[in-house]
């Protein structure tokens, strides 16, 4: 059994910050991985369980903050990469927003 550690950070550009809809997407994606995944608005923590919508929402992360991820487990690297990708793509909402404006 290989224990894998991974970490990374990404700039949160979403208009309101980490609000309800992005938080649902983020926690859903995090739950698809075996690894324990945590996030924090700061490299020093406090670290929050990225699979809990209650915890993620309660962190009230605003726009313009660097979101830090860390993971421990078999698929840790994939988990961090996938989550960073989701934030980078602005939670796949850009197209929907453009359609509204």
């Amino acid at each position, binding site marked *: 059994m290989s224990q894998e550690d991974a970490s990374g950070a990404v700039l949160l550009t979403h208009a309101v910050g980490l609000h*309800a*809809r992005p938080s*649902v997407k983020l926690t859903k994606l995090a739950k698809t991985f075996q690894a324990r995944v945590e996030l924090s608005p700061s490299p020093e923590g406090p670290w929050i369980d990225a699979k809990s919508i*209650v915890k993620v*929402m309660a962190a009230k992360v605003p726009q313009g903050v660097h979101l830090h991820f860390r993971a421990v487990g078999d698929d840790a690297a994939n988990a961090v990469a996938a989550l960073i990708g989701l934030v980078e793509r602005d939670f796949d909402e850009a197209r929907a927003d453009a359609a509204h404006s």
Partner: protein
Amino acid sequence: MQHTVERIGRPASPGVAAGPLVLLGENHALRTPTGDSRRERDDLASAIDRAVGAIRALAGKVDDEAAAILEFQVAMLEDSELVSPAYEQIARGTDAAAAWSAALADQIRTYEEATDEYFRARVADLRDLRDEVLRHLAGDAGGEMLEGAVIAGEDVTPSRFLSVDWSRGGAIALFGGSPSSHVAMLARTRGVPMIVGLGPVDLAGHVEAIVDGDTGRIVLSPQSSDWSTYRSARAARTGRAAEEGTAAMQPAVTANGVPIKVMINVAMPEELDRLDPAMCDGIGLFRTEFLFHGEGGLPDEESQYAAYRKIAKWAAPKPVVLRTLDAGGDKPVAGLTVAGESNPFLGTRGIRLSLAWPDIFKVQLRAMARAAVHGNVRIMLPMVTVPEEVDQAAVLLDACVAELAAAGVPARRPPLGIMVEVPAVAIAPELFANAAFFSIGSNDLTQYVTASARDITAVAGLNDPGNPAVIRLIANVVAGAAALGGDVSLCGDMGGDPRHIAALLAAGLRSVSVAPTLVGRAKLKIAEVVAVP
């Protein structure tokens, strides 16, 4: 067999009705704790399951935007972080409802403290979740069981009122509440008898009740003499109703021949299905809040357009006054209004809220400009305090009309008027030359002039639209409109109240907008009054 009990409250909506008594389960008060922590845990788990099921079912029936909000609620309910503190409390001997309420109270507090407005607004979502689960926990029935019933409780929310099909009868009897609340307004519109301010009443053992909305009297477990009184009251009302029904279809004219415009206040387009446009001179107030109270969150442009178009077509060529969102105060909208303001009636409500959210406001203005193609549409701004607010709204409206024209969407720029309800406007109406028309919102004007909240039973007696100061301000607004060359109407409850009609006509008012059920009564009263031309 229970003894007959009689209580007197304050009349809030006229009419008499009788039916089975249903206590509204707002809180966990309804549910009796089992005292067995395993049962409590199982009951909570199953209530959460049923709440999730209900929300999921709803999500299947709404658009994507609304579904996303519901998906968030489901995700919250399914997160063990939310539920486990409640289970821990239950293990320590707390009952399921109290444990769930406490767990949610902790969550709600963290959102109330948020500096970001968006996160603060999530308080409404969490309260919804709390109440939904409590409702399932109490085994509370949905709207169906409330049909034809006498609904009793501390207070009732507008959405709860609207979930009931009142065509099958029924009445409302509240321990608290106020005759000026929005539910009371809705009750008058729908002809649902309602009394408020009964104080605490022990309903245990009572299964039937008679409610008299004219006198404010409720009879629990009525005896045969009560039933015969009830039947003759119903018969007398039927006679009066016939007279009012005839009067409603005639033009309103005073005893000395002065024509008066009588328009109607409408809260939902569906109300018009049962009404004949010939009864009125137009729609003096369409309240758009109800579009925003659906389970699906904020309404999109298309659904708003469909509603406004229906109203415009119904009344055409008579005017239709569409009021832009009047949320805030006692009419919160999840995700939009500011929660936790120390005094919401003096806070971010009406036009203040719309100007704070121009993107949401523009969706409404676009829908209204599009509907204007189908009739005589006018737009009215609520809670205006200074002329600059009208200017700002006009800029947004012009931009919407220009954008629609550029996109080739048929639209028209409707006249932009204001609701006169803030004393600052009623005192100096001549400052508002930029408003195309005035409509006096006498309910809020009264509450601001008399400094008595419409929803506080203890001071509701002070909340009197007949107060000479209110009448004097109304006369001032009428004079101000005449000086500016604009027209003026009144869309508060006093316009349909026979006790106030003579004073309104004496103040120079020649147009009122009233609940559809009050049109006949208002016209009969107008016919008795001599108006000085």
